[in-house]
């Protein structure tokens, strides 16, 4: 009934439902594909299967409690989500964060970025039909998750950042273990790179597939690695430096053609740059307090803020309206995956069914963030 309404059924060759239970839709995402043989004529994405009303829930929780809700938005880059919210509240309250806390935040966020991109690498391998990359990637990701567990006490839903700093001091052997971890991970990245990036079949599957030009990408609100793959060197860490990102020397990987391979390789390169940032942060970090002097129950003054951070998936914006009470009046999350996913309709037209999987994988969506 609903199908008939949306797509003219006269010239439909075959209509297939990709998802919500499909191995490569990366969560509960549904694509209505209208195909002619192996070609996709029309596509209609359906989201909302994971809609939990997070934004509404935020309005009924205290600021400190909201952090836990943000953990569950992009559930593979939790700390980046926490950082976005904490920074928004802090700049609303005009708090000064102790240096050490900022450094720890940056280190953990960049580690989380690496973990998130590794997840992308592994699942992307599966999407194009290679089964080994996922195991290589998860081996490295597992080390990072274990590292997180030793610091925050949780593998995924950390709830580690506080308004004004972080929850707890780091363990004693943090530096040694971190440098060991970085060595292992950077070696692992090179292995992953060798395994997949230059494989002829992988190139054949991803090069010149799902091309989105810079102007189209901007028009669709695409951000993050996807936008950089199209040739625009925009990164919030550089455009509007937040936290202490202006203190590091690192690179922004930018590609020119905007195809799937570029989106893939930009992420791989970002892992290397993140390692660079972490190493610098490690050497710059000094002892000191980890929590600013804030009241237990934060009451930001009346006002509003739109705070942008660079999550692994792109521009993560938190629009926070405060009425001066201990609960936010309105929280709106600008989820990067949400905007990135919009471009899918455009990308998939005329592609092969197999490309649908490749393209969707290369956009790297997390449904927790899309549906909120």
């Amino acid at each position, binding site marked *: 009934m609903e199908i008939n309404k949306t797509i003219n059924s006269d010239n439909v060759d075959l209509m297939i439902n990709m998802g919500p239970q499909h191995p490569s839709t990366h969560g509960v995402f549904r694509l209505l594909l209208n195909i002619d043989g192996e070609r996709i004529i029309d596509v209609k994405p359906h989201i*909302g299967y994971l*809609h939990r009303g997070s934004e509404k829930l935020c309005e*009924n929780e205290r600021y400190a409690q909201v952090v836990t809700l943000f953990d569950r938005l992009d559930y593979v880059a939790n700390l980046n989500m926490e950082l976005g919210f904490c920074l928004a509240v802090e700049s609303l309250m*005009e708090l000064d964060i102790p240096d050490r806390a900022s450094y720890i935040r940056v280190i953990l966020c960049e580690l989380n970025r690496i973990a998130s991109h590794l997840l992308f690498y592994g699942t992307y391998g599966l999407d194009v039909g290679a089964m080994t990359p996922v195991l290589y990637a998860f081996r490295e990701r597992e080390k990072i998750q274990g590292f997180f567990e030793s610091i925050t006490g949780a593998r995924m839903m950390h709830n580690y950042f506080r308004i004004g700093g972080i929850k707890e001091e780091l363990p004693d052997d943090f530096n040694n273990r971190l440098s060991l971890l970085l060595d292992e991970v950077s070696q692992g990245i090179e292995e992953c790179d060798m395994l997949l990036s230059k494989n002829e079949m992988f190139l054949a599957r991803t090069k010149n597939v799902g091309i989105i030009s810079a102007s189209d990408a901007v028009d669709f609100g695409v951000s993050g690695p996807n936008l950089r793959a199209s040739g625009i060197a925009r990164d919030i860490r550089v455009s509007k430096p937040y936290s202490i990102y202006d203190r590091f020397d690192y690179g922004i990987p930018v590609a020119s053609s905007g195809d799937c391979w570029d989106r893939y390789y930009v992420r791989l390169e970002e892992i290397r740059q993140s390692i660079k940032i972490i190493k610098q942060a490690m050497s710059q970090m000094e002892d000191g307090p980890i929590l600013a002097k804030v009241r237990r129950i934060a009451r930001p003054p009346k*006002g509003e803020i*739109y705070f942008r951070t660079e999550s692994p998936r792109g521009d993560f*914006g938190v*629009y926070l309206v405060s009425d001066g009470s201990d609960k936010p*009046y309105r929280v709106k999350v600008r989820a990067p995956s949400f905007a990135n996913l919009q471009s899918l309709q455009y990308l998939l037209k005329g592609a092969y069914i197999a490309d649908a999987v490749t393209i969707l994988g290369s956009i790297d969506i997390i449904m927790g963030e899309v549906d909120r």
Partner: protein
Amino acid sequence: MENQKTNNKESKEDSDILVSTPEQDELISLLTKRFPSVPDININHLQEDIELIIESKNIKSTCRLLKDSSELNFNYLECISLVDYEEKLEAVYHLTSFKLKQSLVIKTSISVENPEIDSVIDIWRAADWFEREAHDLFGVTFLGHPNLEPLLLFEGFEGYPGRKNFPINDYKEW
């Protein structure tokens, strides 16, 4: 206590306008030149974004001008947020110009009784899902949007869960 706080904030706002960066001054002057009739151009002192408060009927023409004028070129629509202030709804558009590397906030009020506003989907395709989401959660009709089907909620969902008067605790899902 309460008074003191608001006083502080006001004074801060004043001082912030004074210390605005040269790029922002440039943008403000550009905007005032472009929109002589618009009364409110503010700087949000926290994020240093310039706010443009307009009437809801002007939204489409303003956005068109902001995107198409060559010196402004706000080509990137970041987000459309709606805030329910009970007596009115407020639509907030966050734009970025890659050319100026500057961001702009457009605010406009929508009446609660007749929540209608022009769609900006012709200007930025990014507006598509943001507007559908706002339609879902706040019941705002975006005139000119080709397909305002429910996006996040299921078909036949009653009520607008984004609004303040939606009963969050009494709501029975099943």
